């Protein structure tokens, strides 16, 4: 037995990688939540609108994070799911007078089905090949939405105008502010569900598949089922983000949902830190605000400036916002010791 213990202890002298948290601590979460709750009171409607878009894109990045960070599958086709969600809401609201809030779960269910079905052929692909297949989906979607026989519902190239909802119960609130708080509630709920999911048996199955498919299968994980489920869940959340986006922008048109959107979301995920859910909001901020900053620096070369800024971020913090958070934590720890 002593031999066993010697071996064991000898091993433990080696410093191993500590556990990396998937979420923020309770304290930090509460501070962020308070900031998100109070901020709209002090700013103009346009800024409130931008904050709403930040949450919406954050949600879409979170969805991609579950797929890529969770189950290890790449997707450059998230714009297609976003479009399906947006159009589901627009069509239901404008053609069938369905309440905007009710359209969200419907869009979620429609997109879950769509993502789950798309996940079936995607099962045979992995890595860059999967990225290419999803890329094809993203490229096809705007054209599908323009199809003649769908025009009666989708409005064709013209798109559809969506009516912005008023605050209910006569709350003294602008439409923008109401929509912001509505979005915030939806986003927080989905964030909590996502954290629960990734920490659960299903989430562990996702991550097991990401890390080693054969071993996962030997442990009884139905690899095909969980891979398609991950696609379905990711598509459902992206679709709900698309719904919220349609309501916030008050307009859906095929060319709002091109591959550019999918690439932006992918970028947002990388900048936020793959697999780190709170990073999604940071990634969303990057894809919304950094192009504006780049334009402020040079109108003619905004694309190049954006490229340089992106390069700097990837060079300095390859693991994105997660890395910054870890560094901050370590710094705080050191300060406390001194």
């Amino acid at each position: 037995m002593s031999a066993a213990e010697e071996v064991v202890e000898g091993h433990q002298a080696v410093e191993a990688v500590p556990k990396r948290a998937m979420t923020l601590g309770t304290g930090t979460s509460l501070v962020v939540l308070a900031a998100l709750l109070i901020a709209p009171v002090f700013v103009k409607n346009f800024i409130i609108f931008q904050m709403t878009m930040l949450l919406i894109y954050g949600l879409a990045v979170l969805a991609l994070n579950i797929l890529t960070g969770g189950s290890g599958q790449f997707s450059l086709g998230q714009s297609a799911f976003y479009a399906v969600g947006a159009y589901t809401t627009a069509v239901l609201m404008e053609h069938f007078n369905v309440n905007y809030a009710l359209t969200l779960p419907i869009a979620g269910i429609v997109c879950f089905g769509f993502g789950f079905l798309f996940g079936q052929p995607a099962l045979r692909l992995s890595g860059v090949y999967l990225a290419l297949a999803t890329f094809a989906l993203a490229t096809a979607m705007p054209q599908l939405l323009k199809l003649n026989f769908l025009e009666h519902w989708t409005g064709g190239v013209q798109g559809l105008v969506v009516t912005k909802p008023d605050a209910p119960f006569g709350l003294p609130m602008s439409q923008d502010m109401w929509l912001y708080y509505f979005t915030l509630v939806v986003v927080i709920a989905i964030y909590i569900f996502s954290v629960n999911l990734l920490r659960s048996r299903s989430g562990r199955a996702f991550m097991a598949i990401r890390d080693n498919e054969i071993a996962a299968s030997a442990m009884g994980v139905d690899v095909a089922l969980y891979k398609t489920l991950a696609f379905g869940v990711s598509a459902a959340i992206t679709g709900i983000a698309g719904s919220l986006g349609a309501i916030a922008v008050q307009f859906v048109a095929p060319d709002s949902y091109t591959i550019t959107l999918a690439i932006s979301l992918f970028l947002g995920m990388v900048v936020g830190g793959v697999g780190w859910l709170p990073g999604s909001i940071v990634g969303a901020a990057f894809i919304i605000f950094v192009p504006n900053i780049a334009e402020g620096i040079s109108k003619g070369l905004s694309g190049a400036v954006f490229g340089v800024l992106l390069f700097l971020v990837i060079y300095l913090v390859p693991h994105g916002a997660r890395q910054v958070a870890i560094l901050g934590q370590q710094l705080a720890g050191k300060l406390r010791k001194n």
Partner: protein
Amino acid sequence: MTQAQLAQGTSPLLAVRDVSVVFGGIIALNGVSFDMRKGQILGLIGPNGAGKTTLFNCLSRLYQPSSGDILMEGVSILSRPPHRIAEIGIGRTFQNVALFPNLTVMDNVRVGAHSKTSSDIISDSLRLAWVRRSETEVNKKVQEILAYLKLEDVAHTVVSGLPFGTQKRVELARALAADPKILLLDEPAGGLNHEEVYVLGDLIRRIRDDRHMTVLLVEHHMGLVMSIADHVVALNFGKKLAEGTPAQVQADPDVIKAYLGSKDQ
């Protein structure tokens, strides 16, 4: 041999019946048969390319035998997909450690309990009461296994940074989490030093005794197999060369020839 054991009245836990595997024109396994009885440690030995890993992969359903059958408690396992092998009580470890490198030790072992539990994504997202109860039970079980294998101190460490020997124990813990009836170990001594191999042999025997398991040990390390196996099956070129107690197999002239080589080897 088989008939003699059948005459004793105990039916085998696992029966390999005339299994052949053909890859293209190569016969990797040629009509191999043997039985595993409850509580046995069965050592499967043979030189490189003898077909040990092929047989192992048939048991874990990664390969489909070209002919023959594999029966677990009298029922064929060959119609089951690989992910439905764990639920009938067959657990395994891998030759060069196949853990989930980005997960903690605890989460790795929890995945091991996947086949013992059930859930769906909606209940998991909402953390419904029954999901929480099931998770509490899983955690209790995992803690017990980690303590049993002396892994508590690294429970919350990501496995990719752990030393090889520790990773091997984590893999064992992960396999135990499903309460398998049969534990398939694919070259567990590979990459371990002399002392570690000795500790491992002790551990395998302890697992068999404490946790009432039956162990199939595929191993290169003769010393380990001969010291802990109750029964040894020797393969060479896809065929069963000899079967019996370690002493019998060790004395078998064909086995000696296969290992030490005759003129043409």
